[in-house]
């Protein structure tokens, strides 16, 4: 198992710079997730680490060795793709063992590793099948198995759950989490889904427009976002941003408050608004209120609540859990 270190990685396609100088250290055994909106460069960065894309400048070190210019197969990595990318003409067993066969490893070792991976992912019954005869979830497990068999220094996941339906996504997410615990492997994982990032990651790297906005544990990012972008990206439903002038606060440009930190309290109303929509999820209730100049504000209440659409409500903000941002969107402490 290995560490990963990126130093000032840059990547341009023609005149367009998509990665603008990334520095990052991933410790041994850590699961780091790159998260960001589409087009932020997270997949490109992963492909640069894999060696599928060449960096314009910068150094990549895996396990202390510089791997710039090395072919993907020499870097000691495995990758799981969004589209599974299984070899259609090979059985599950052959799919998993191709990499080792290519490296001319002994047959009994290959068999041992395939059996280990298939037991771990409960693929024993499918070893002789072809990818076309498997369901989506099974295919993704085979793809993960193919990655495990290589015993890489570094696992790379490129949005592995995006092609699965919601229920399977949760199951496979749990599987990846337990895999990480069992193998204590170093993993880099790319997703655009902040829930996936929050639930799986040891550390999250938030990327935007080719630069790192913030690196930290899920709770660090949730509790102490460095700027408005991170604050808005982490947490669901999204943080509400209100112009500070609406709350008569002069020391900030914008104020952020998470939906779960707003309560109804007529006596100490910070804002009043008209209910425009209610989402009842059973466990909690999201109420959207139109607060005029302050915009549409989402309130998340735990448990089941009723509210009339178009009725007027008073909102009270938990002052300790408010975030203040300056003109450039940076957090004011």
């Amino acid at each position, binding site marked *: 198992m290995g560490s990963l270190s990126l130093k000032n990685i840059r990547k341009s396609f023609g005149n367009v710079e998509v990665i603008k100088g990334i520095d990052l250290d991933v410790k041994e055994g850590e699961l780091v997730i790159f998260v960001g909106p589409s087009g932020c460069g997270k997949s490109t960065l992963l*492909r640069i680490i*894999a060696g*599928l894309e060449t960096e314009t400048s910068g150094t990549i070190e895996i396990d202390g060795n510089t791997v710039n210019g090395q*072919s*993907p*197969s020499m870097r000691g*990595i*495995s*990758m799981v*793709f*969004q*589209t*599974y*990318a*299984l*070899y*259609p*003409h090979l059985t599950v067993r052959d799919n998993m063992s*191709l*990499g080792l066969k*290519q*490296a001319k490893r002994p047959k009994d070792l290959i068999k041992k590793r395939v059996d280990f991976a298939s037991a771990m992912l409960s693929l024993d019954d499918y070893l002789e099948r072809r*990818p*076309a*005869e498997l369901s*989506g979830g099974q*295919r993704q497990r085979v793809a993960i198995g*193919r990655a495990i068999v*290589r015993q890489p220094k570094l696992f790379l996941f*490129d949005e592995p759950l995006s*092609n699965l339906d919601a229920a399977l996504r949760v199951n496979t997410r749990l599987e990846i989490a337990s895999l990480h615990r069992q193998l204590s492997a170093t993993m880099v994982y790319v997703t655009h889904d902040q829930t996936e990032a929050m639930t799986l990651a040891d550390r999250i790297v938030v990327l935007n427009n080719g630069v790192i906005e913030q690196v930290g544990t899920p709770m660090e990012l949730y509790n102490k976002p460095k700027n408005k972008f991170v604050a808005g990206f982490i947490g669901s439903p999204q943080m509400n941003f209100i112009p500070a002038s609406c709350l008569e606060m002069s020391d900030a440009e914008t104020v952020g408050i998470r939906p779960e930190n707003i309560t109804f309290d007529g006596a100490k109303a910070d804002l009043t608004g008209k209910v425009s929509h209610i989402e009842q999820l059973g466990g909690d209730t999201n109420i959207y209120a139109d607060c005029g100049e302050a915009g549409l504000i989402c309130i998340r209440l735990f448990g089941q609540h009723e509210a009339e659409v178009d009725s007027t409500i008073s909102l009270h903000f938990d002052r300790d859990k408010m975030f203040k941002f300056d003109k450039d969107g940076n957090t004011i402490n």
Partner: protein
Amino acid sequence: MSVDIKTTARSQVTFRAIAAHAILITYTLIALFPVFVIVINSFKSRKAIFREPLSVPTPETFSLKGYETVLKQGDFVLYFQNSLVVTVASLTMVLLFGAMAAFALSEYRFRGNLLTGLYLAIGIMIPIRLGTVAILEMMVASGLVNTLTALILVYTAQGLPLAIFILTEFMQGISDDLKNAGRIDGLSEYTIFGVLVLPLIRPALATVAVFTMIPIWNDLWFPLILAPAEETKTITLGAQVFIGQFVTDWNAVLASLSLAIIPVLVLYLIFSRQLIKGITAGAVK
């Protein structure tokens, strides 16, 4: 009421199906008619061919004279062999080089990629026969006149533009992830091309094969100019032996043409099976 609507709808569907089939069957009949006439007449005596060209052979008019002439003339097997060698060799080269060029054009970003693709596609628009004189001069200079190699080279050049154009389009549709998975597993670019990509574009290869094969098999122009010698004659050129300035042995001409259909039909059947086979289903979602 609702029953009425249903029956109307159903009869409309039936009507459409019948109309579509009628059009297709008519077209098939028109397309097959000349072939049919050639084949039936090849089994008739010379007099019967001229008396009633459209009637099928009866016991009185049945004759294998044409086939006897063709097969007795010993060279005919050689002509067949020449045609087959030229067609199969050219086809193999067109498919192999076409697919390789298409892979390079679709897979790699390099300076001049677009220009190279355009240059290779221009050949679709310019008929190779315009260059006949230059080709002949080149063949004379390189001493390839009256060899099958000359024909194979010309037909490969003739088939490549369309092959590259069609295959590039298809290869662009193949998932990058699959190729990248191969790279991570340590497969060489040649293995990725041969083992991962080629099987996935089999339907396209079959299409290109059919389009390339038929003009080569039927060509009279280049065999006549580049390889008219007895030992390098192709079947189409060979059949001309029976067409004289004053006397034409129609039995033999029709028999040789009927025989010439068979190999190309067999090749077509092989490729069309590949066309239909959908082995790629479910490989990449």
